[in-house]
């Protein structure tokens, strides 16, 4: 299915992104640019308490304020909407778009006011009096499971809201027979994507037609569109959902906006109006989304030669106050690739999702993988140290061989292609590993603390919807009421107009990843034109755009499934044009070639027809077409993976469809007096299958590593012991700036095209988000080895590192 190398004129080249022109000229069209006549503006009153009963809300004064049109209060919500369900969570846990009788996190909305403008709406919030009965809050996963812990959802009687014990192979036997074991407790904190544009929703309800039109900067998956329709108790064909053409970043966080969409839609419905809500930064920090945090107990078993034989781990996941779909996927999305690139077969994961008085967790770039790889790469380094083996050497011993692909993992994934050892070799070469180790030795003599850390991981892309069902027990899945899930498709529409111009229509909800230009390259290759001649409209509208349940931008699916759909659709239209050209030129279709905007006979390029001529025939003179051929030149194609099947009874599932690979090597220097860490060198080698555009990919990699540096050293979605979110602005939530970004990255590539996608491409957008935290932590520990410091908790702030150094000194 993949194209042969050398055939592509555009795919694989660094064609510049044309979208950038409109961004830098201030001509992007974002949710806030959408203005409707007689539109009202909404503002939310949010709880200052992390945990409290709502005794009373009095909004009378607010309603009397001039310019205020209405208010929606929590007690109205259960009568007009359904609770949001989540996989593997008891339906007794009620989750609405607003707090009803209790608030469970600081920042949870308790009332929504609509007014003629946002200023009046916010003034009205000050006039709403809420009587709270504060309750004790709990913000630590292990404390929340203790006997006397405050319970968030009394109907459940526990804060453990999802629990799966996943066991593949025989881990107990493996540990009994192991030559050596290592174990430790790891703490990975919570951080987030902080997109530059926050959430925005416009809901317009037409009471005459009982029809709801929605606009929101949502990125999919569109399975959540069906979820919000169900929550609103409306049929899908009574809702039209439009996503603006431009979204200012998402990194997965904007998957969660469906909850806010329901709240704003409810207030629009109540008053039969158009209502706009634009979230400000503080609201986003307390009420938007963040990746889960995790406390893990990890054990690894191995032979004395360093061959991993099994891993046994227990996770306590901080998922926040409610389970916002697609959670608890933070634990289960990577189930197929839990083993990463290693060949061991025995694994047990005891996954516990714990409700805490914090904002709900959400998907964030790397989704679930950075937590798994942190555990595995850290414990593997500890094993290497115990066996006195080099961390590169131990990984090389355990990586899957290239002749083993397609590779079936013990947890149910089929790794489509790869050459992991080549990636590791290339990374070692690029990093100048031997030279760097020598430098490290010399530096140690000079009293400098320099460390080198390695991390390798499999990058899963294009989620198979079936992964959601890992959250259910096999018994729950065997019940009659359970409906199996599978699939990971995308849809594209391609048309050629009467004058031969090409338009592609897609709904991948781009948020700055240059989707339009990438599709233009792909389609230009199919037709033999230049990308500048291809118009790509990537703008979702459920009424007019083709889409499927999995449509959207998440799990790095664009590069593999969206480009496949576009290529297939273009190919179909082109094949039709080839048939028409053959018919007109009286040649056989096999002898027709397309290039430079022309269709010509192989070997006789002067016997040709322009795109315009062929298109014109199809549109203006369909009577001359071969018999049986349809009028016009357009088609809609949905590309789905055959490998996206549902889960088995023993919890095996191909949770993604294409699998890339990355190896990250970092060199750092730690200042023992300040705890500050300097990044000296960073090398990363990626296998994303066929590279569609090297410049775009390079940008993705720089972004992934910069975000990880931020996450490991600076960012902390922190809550104090009373559940107060204490980093609700960028003064305290420290995103990396240009100064903290890596000055130089050495990037290498290995290309093992996927046999499953049309162009052989796989996802590559998340990659280093998944391995960089582990590589950095490994490097810092390596630097602090002479001081006997173990790194098992993030973030690695200067304060934390300095304290670890002092504690280690005292213990001596």
């Amino acid at each position: 299915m993949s194209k042969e190398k050398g055939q592509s004129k555009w795919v694989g080249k660094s064609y510049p992104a044309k979208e950038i022109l409109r961004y830098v000229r201030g001509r992007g069209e974002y949710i806030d640019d959408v203005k409707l006549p007689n539109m009202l503006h909404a503002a939310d009153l949010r709880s200052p308490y992390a945990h409290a009963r709502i005794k009373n809300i009095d909004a009378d004064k607010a309603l009397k304020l001039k310019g205020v049109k209405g208010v929606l209060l929590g007690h109205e919500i259960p009568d007009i909407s359904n609770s949001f369900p989540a996989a593997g969570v008891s339906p007794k846990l009620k989750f609405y778009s607003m707090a009803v009788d209790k608030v469970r996190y600081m920042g949870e909305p308790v009332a929504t006011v609509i007014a003629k403008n946002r200023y009046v709406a916010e003034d009205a919030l000050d006039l709403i009096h809420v009587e709270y009965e504060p309750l004790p809050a709990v913000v630590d996963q292990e404390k929340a499971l203790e006997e006397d812990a405050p319970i968030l959802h009394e109907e459940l009687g526990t804060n453990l809201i999802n629990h799966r014990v996943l066991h593949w192979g025989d881990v107990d036997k493996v540990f009994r027979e192991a030559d050596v074991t290592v174990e430790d407790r790891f703490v990975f904190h919570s951080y987030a994507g902080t997109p530059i544009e926050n959430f925005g929703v416009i809901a317009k309800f037409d009471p005459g037609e009982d029809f709801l039109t929605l606009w929101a900067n949502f990125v999919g998956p569109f399975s959540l569109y069906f979820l919000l329709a169900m929550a609103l108790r409306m049929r899908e064909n009574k809702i039209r959902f439009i996503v603006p053409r431009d979204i200012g970043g998402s990194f997965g966080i904007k998957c969660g906006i469906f909850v806010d969409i329901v709240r704003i839609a409810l207030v629009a419905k109540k008053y039969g109006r158009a209502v706009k809500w634009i979230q400000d930064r503080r609201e986003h920090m307390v009420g938007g989304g963040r990746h889960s945090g995790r406390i893990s107990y990890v054990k690894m078993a191995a032979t004395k030669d360093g061959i991993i034989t099994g891993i046994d781990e227990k996770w306590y996941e901080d998922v926040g106050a409610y389970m916002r779909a697609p959670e608890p996927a933070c634990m289960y999305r990577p189930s197929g690739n839990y083993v990463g690139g290693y060949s061991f077969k025995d694994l047990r994961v005891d996954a516990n999702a714990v409700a805490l008085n914090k904002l709900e967790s959400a998907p964030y770039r790397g989704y679930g993988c950075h937590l798994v790889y942190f555990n595995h790469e850290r414990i593997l380094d500890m094993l290497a140290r115990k066996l006195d083996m080099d961390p590169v050497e131990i990984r090389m011993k355990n990586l899957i061989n290239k002749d083993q692909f397609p590779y079936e993992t013990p947890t149910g994934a089929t790794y489509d292609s790869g050459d992991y050892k080549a990636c590791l070799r290339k990374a070692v070469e690029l990093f100048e590993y031997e030279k760097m180790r020598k430098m490290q030795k010399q530096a140690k003599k000079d009293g400098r603390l320099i460390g080198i850390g390695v991390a390798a991981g499999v990058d899963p892309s294009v989620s198979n919807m079936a992964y959601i069902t890992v959250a259910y027990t096999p018994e729950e899945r065997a019940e009659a009421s359970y409906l199996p899930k599978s699939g990971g498709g995308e849809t594209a529409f391609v048309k050629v107009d009467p004058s031969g111009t090409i338009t592609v229509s897609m709904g991948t909800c781009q948020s700055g990843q240059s989707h339009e230009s990438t599709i233009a390259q792909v389609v230009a290759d199919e037709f033999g034109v230049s990308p500048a001649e291809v118009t790509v409209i990537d703008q979702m509208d459920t009424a007019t755009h083709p889409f499927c349940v999995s449509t959207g931008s998440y799990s790095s699916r664009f590069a593999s499934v969206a480009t496949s759909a576009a290529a297939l659709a273009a190919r179909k239209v082109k094949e039709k044009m080839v048939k028409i050209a053959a018919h007109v030129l009286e040649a056989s279709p096999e002898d027709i070639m397309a290039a430079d905007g022309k269709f010509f006979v192989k070997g006789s390029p002067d016997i040709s027809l322009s795109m315009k001529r062929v298109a014109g025939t199809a549109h203006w003179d369909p009577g001359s077409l071969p018999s049986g051929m349809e009028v016009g030149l357009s088609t809609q194609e949905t590309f789905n993976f055959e490998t996206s099947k549902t889960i088995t009874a023993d919890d095996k599932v191909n949770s993604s469809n294409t699998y890339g690979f990355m190896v990250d090597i970092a060199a750092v220097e730690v200042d023992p007096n300040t705890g500050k860490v300097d990044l000296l060198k960073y090398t990363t080698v990626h296998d994303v299958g066929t590279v569609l555009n090297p410049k775009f990919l390079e940008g993705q990699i720089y972004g992934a590593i910069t975000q990880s540096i931020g996450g490991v050293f600076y960012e902390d979605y922190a809550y104090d012991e009373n559940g107060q979110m204490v980093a609700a602005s960028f003064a305290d939530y420290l995103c990396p700036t240009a100064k903290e970004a890596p000055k130089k990255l050495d990037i290498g590539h290995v290309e093992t095209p996927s046999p499953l996608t049309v162009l052989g491409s796989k996802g590559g957008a998340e990659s280093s988000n998944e391995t960089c935290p582990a590589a950095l932590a490994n490097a810092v520990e390596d630097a602090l080895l002479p001081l006997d410091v173990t790194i098992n908790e993030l973030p690695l702030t200067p304060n934390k590192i300095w304290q670890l150094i002092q504690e280690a000194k005292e213990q001596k």
Partner: protein
Amino acid sequence: MKLEGTYRFNTAQEKVWEVLTNPKHLEKAIPGCEKLEEIEPGKYDATLKIGIAAIKGTYKGMAEVADPQPPDKYRLVVEGGGSPGFVKGEALIELSYQDQRTIVSYQGEGQVGGLIAGVGQRLISGIAKMMLGQFFKQIGKELKSL
């Protein structure tokens, strides 16, 4: 956050007790306090206007002189809520007399929540210290005016 400290006054313990427990003086001493209105003996409705991290707000709540054991100790409880969030403070205040001076020591907890907690975190302990300093400075002034 933990709050603790000691202040010394060159005045008799009974006089210091009087100033520290009388709403007439507390109203002037509690920073930002606009009004203290008695609900019942020892319990007062309070209106506070405080600025933290450039967020000025009005907090309505209460102040209480609890478990008084004159002239040695009592618990001071202050709490208020408003659009910028809520503030809560509780301290055990103990008096003793030594070397012709009254020593006032306090030990307590302060809590801040809502908007100000979210955006003013790095300033809060500094502001709390500053407000305690202002409180005791004013207490000193009230003593001089007796």
